[in-house]
Each structure stands twice: as C-alpha cells, then as structure tokens.
C-alpha cells in the first residue's frame, strides 16, 4: 500500500525587527552575530506532530527559513505551525496547497490565539496541545471528515507522549536543539501569549524520559548545544536537581529559560554549571517599579525586582551567563526607560539581552485593552516580531519605541562595552577553571596516596 505523505511546514519569518534600523544593526554589528546562533531552532510543535503520526505516513519536515517549499510535491496532508509573525506566510502557503486540493491543518501559537481567523484560511485548526489533538485529526482525515476546529478538552499527559521525532530535523543545520522538559509557567504576565493559551497548569515530563531524549539527540547530532525550551526551567526545585544531576555525566552544553528565583539555591547553581549550563534567559521584563506593578497576577515580578542585581551576580559567578529579557513600551514607560534599561544591563554585565517592544498579541488581555482604546496599529501579522512596534505607546511614538529598544542593543553591543564584558566574564571563568583544577589535583593526590578516589 502506498504510504500517505504528510508535509510538516514551518513558514518563513523574520526573527528580529523587520524595520530597516533593526535589520542594519543585525547585519553590521559583529558583537551581535551570536543572536541567530543562540536562538535558532526547529519548529518543536511539528516535531511533536511527527511523533504522533502513524507509521503508514511518509513525513517530510520543511523549515522555510532553510529550504524552499515545492508546492507541486506529492502531498496528501499539510500541517502548518507558526507564531503570529509567521501568520501571513502561513496563509499564503495554505492557499497554495488548498488550490491543489491538498487539505491543510494549522496549529501552533497563532492558531491558538485566534483560531477563528486562522480557520478562514485552512481546512482544520488545532486549538491546544498536539498530543491531545493530532490522533483525532489523523483519524478524521483518513475518514474524509476533517472538522474545522479541534479543541483540547483535557491537558496532555506529557509523561505518556511519545518522544518527539527529532530525527525529522536532523539533516538541517540548527545551532541549538530544542528539548522540552516541562510546559507552562506559574506567572501569568499580561502580555505573554504562550502561557495564556497553551496551558493554564504546569506539566512535566518524567526526568528519565528527558534524559532519554537528550541521549537520543546526542546520538544523532555531533555534540548538540541543547536549548531546554521550557517556559520556566526551574519551577519544581527537587525535580530540577534530579534532572541536573542526571545531565552531569552526559557532558552537554545547554541553555534554558526561567525566572530569577533559583539564584538562592547553591545546589542548583553548582549542578547547573557542572551539567554544562552556559546561559539562562531570564524574563526581567523591566527595571521600573511602576512598570512591574501589576505585570503579572501575583505581582511576583515586582517583588523580584530588588533581587535582580544580587541574582545576576550570583548566577554569573557560577559560570552561567544571564541573558536578560526586557519588554519595553508599557504605559508606564517613557523615553527615559531605554537609558535606564541600558544602564542596568551594562552596570551588571549581563551576558546577553533581548529587548523587545510590548506586543499586543491577539487573544491577550493586553490586546483587549489596546483595542478598546483604539491603539492597535494597522500592521500585518509579519510585523509581530516583538521587535517592531505594532501599537501606539502612551508616552512615545511607535517609532521612538522601536528606536529606543534598539538603542539598548546598540549601547550593550558597542565595542568598548563588549571589551569590558569580556574581561568580566574571563575573570569569572578563570576563577572557576582554577577551582576545578585545584579540585582535580586534590582528587588525584588522594588517589595517589590512598589508592581511593575522593567522593
């Protein structure tokens, strides 16, 4: 029997500002060249869909940022994913395949945010987690009964889900390989689209399952740099410690995302360094008391503000770079906020920064507020990069917001500061290397004198 052919497609998009100033900066700033390296990965949702597809399908994964789409290729079903910045292209791709009689299913963040809008462009929309929906989609497709919308009714059990089909993305060059160990975040920030739509409650994969996935990836890529793509890697401390302890012998390099709360836990910090953690992206969001007030339901980020400086120092002294994420342009921000942010990230030697413009993603409370106030600009979805301004800020123009956010990058990645930052991190690493060598010497001495290795 001829296998059915499923195309999994991630549409192309710009993952930094589309405006000319951002593009010029990305092209010309040598110190910024690691941006793509650090944050480029495959479309994780499609890799999960691949793992949930029965074996009588021939699956092809296509990342349009890497390879072109052949619309005339043999295909029985197309699955598209995408963030809002990819939506316009997602609709174009859907139109091409549907014109050829190939049904198209869409999922991913944008489809979850405004399924009604997406439904006008595709045959079926998946609202929720792939694990809970895709088997039903496949069943209905095979019976010629695709429904316009599939909605999740219960949270997916991550422990029971099959291993994502990482092998689908293997032939392409991805600087980092994304592995998910948990899904969801306890903080419900007003502007965050992901946690609002995907999962109201945190879900974990069992630690041994994660370790098996890391080993699987390690066998298929040469020395992969792994990005644990969890919304918040360090929520359950005990589980995190167990996971880190089991990562140590694997000898990988990895990055993750979290809030700052783990900085007080010496054991986690040591385990992170020992297990190869190079960088943690931490959502600071703002250094302003006014802006952080009410940014999340429990005011957790505001309460953490006083700890930012201490947290950054402690985390980085353990050899883990802090990649600070800031969101500018909220109603309490003024044009002075850019300078304040730049001063903070430089004074405390953050390893890297992500400075984005507040973006009223469809479906978020922020969007509802801004629509009510008539402040959402008429911009295509492709401008929802989080680096382009798509709304009218209260205390500045949209152009000032874009330029102001970029000005923080320009200050941070200036050669003079890069030199200072390099010296700062070199000192940290030299200290850690000396400490590691001294420990090794002590171990060797003990082994030589007692014949027993120290524990």
């Amino acid at each position, binding site marked *: 029997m001829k296998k059915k052919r499923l195309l999994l497609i991630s549409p192309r998009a710009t993952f930094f500002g589309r405006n000319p100033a951002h593009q010029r900066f990305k092209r010309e700033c040598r110190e910024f*060249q*690691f941006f793509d*390296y*650090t944050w480029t990965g495959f479309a994780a949702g499609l890799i999960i869909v691949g793992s949930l597809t029965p074996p009588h399908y021939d699956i092809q994964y296509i990342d349009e940022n890497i390879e072109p789409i052949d619309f005339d290729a043999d295909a029985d079903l197309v699955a598209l994913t995408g963030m809002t910045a990819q939506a316009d292209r997602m609709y174009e791709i859907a139109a091409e395949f549907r014109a050829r009689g190939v049904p198209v299913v869409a999922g991913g963040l944008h489809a979850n945010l405004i399924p009604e809008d997406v439904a006008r462009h595709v045959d079926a929309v998946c609202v929720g987690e792939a694990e809970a929906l895709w088997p039903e989609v496949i069943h209905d497709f095979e019976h010629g009964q695709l429904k316009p919308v599939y909605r999740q009714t219960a949270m997916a059990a991550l422990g029971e889900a099959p291993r994502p089909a990482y092998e689908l993305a293997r032939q392409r060059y991805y*600087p980092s390989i994304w592995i998910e160990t948990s899904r969801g975040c306890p903080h419900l920030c007003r502007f965050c689209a992901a946690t609002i739509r995907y999962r109201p409650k945190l879900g974990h994969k069992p630690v041994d399952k994660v370790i098996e996935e890391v080993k699987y990836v390690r066998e298929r890529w*040469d*020395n*992969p*740099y792994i990005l644990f793509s969890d919304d918040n890697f360090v929520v359950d401390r005990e589980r995190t410690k167990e996971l880190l302890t089991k990562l140590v012998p694997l*000898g990988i*390099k990895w990055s993750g995302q979290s809030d700052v709360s783990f900085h007080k836990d010496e054991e986690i910090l040591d385990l992170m360094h020992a297990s190869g953690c*190079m*960088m943690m992206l931490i959502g600071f969001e703002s250094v302003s008391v006014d802006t952080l007030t009410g940014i999340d339901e429990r005011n957790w980020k505001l309460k953490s503000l006083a700890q930012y400086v201490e947290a950054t120092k402690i985390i980085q002294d353990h*050899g883990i*770079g802090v990649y600070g994420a800031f969101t500018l342009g909220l109603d309490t921000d003024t044009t002075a906020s850019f300078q304040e942010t730049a001063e903070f990230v430089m004074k405390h030697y953050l*390893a*890297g920064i992500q400075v984005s413009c507040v973006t009223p993603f469809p479906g978020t409370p922020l969007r509802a507020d801004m629509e009510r106030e008539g402040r959402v600009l008429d911009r295509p979805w492709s401008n929802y990069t989080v680096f382009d301004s798509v709304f009218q800020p209260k205390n500045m123009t949209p152009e000032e917001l874009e330029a102001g956010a970029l000005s923080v990058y320009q200050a941070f990645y200036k*050669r003079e500061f*890069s*030199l*200072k930052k*390099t*010296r700062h*991190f*070199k000192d*940290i*690493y*030299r200290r*850690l*290397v*000396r400490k590691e*060598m001294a420990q*090794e010497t002590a171990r060797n001495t003990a082994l030589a004198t007692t014949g027993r290795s120290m524990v």
Partner: protein
Amino acid sequence: MTATIDPTFELIRNVICKVTKLPPEAVLLENPVTGLQNVDSIVLLEIVARVEVSLDVSIDEQVLFEIQTVGDFVKVCQELVAAKGADKGASGGAVADGAR
C-alpha cells in the same frame, strides 16, 4: 615520520576539544574561532579562560577581539608565552593541564 605539533597549538586544541567535545582532527589552525561547532560567545570565553590559566597568560581583550582563526589564537598565545620567558617549561606542563 611523525609530524611535530606545536605545544601551544596542542594545548589550545585539547582545550577546545575538552570544552566542545569536538574530535582533535576537527580543530584546524585555519578554523574561524566563532565558526567552530558548538561555540557561542560564552563557550568561547570558557575556552579562552582555560587556555589563559593553563599557560599562565592574560590576553588583552582588544587583542582577543582581533582574533579570527584558531591559528591567530595560537600565535597570540605563543607571543605571550615567549614574552614572559617561560616558553619551554610552561608549555610542556600546560599541555597536560589543558587536556584534563
């Protein structure tokens, strides 16, 4: 006949291999330092710090930014080692340190 490998290059290669898990044959003098597999800015700094500690030298940050290839890195280190007048003694012992 066995080709002689420069001890500073050997040390640097050992450090790069230890940090990145690359096989020694993948580290060549002509490799661009920012293009090595698995090397981002933080990983690069770890490599530099390990080499500095092993050779007991300190590379000026301005010089570090001018380094394009592994060969450039080796040359800068050779010059620093020579300048401190400890070339012979330091490199031999340092190779073992860097390889650990």
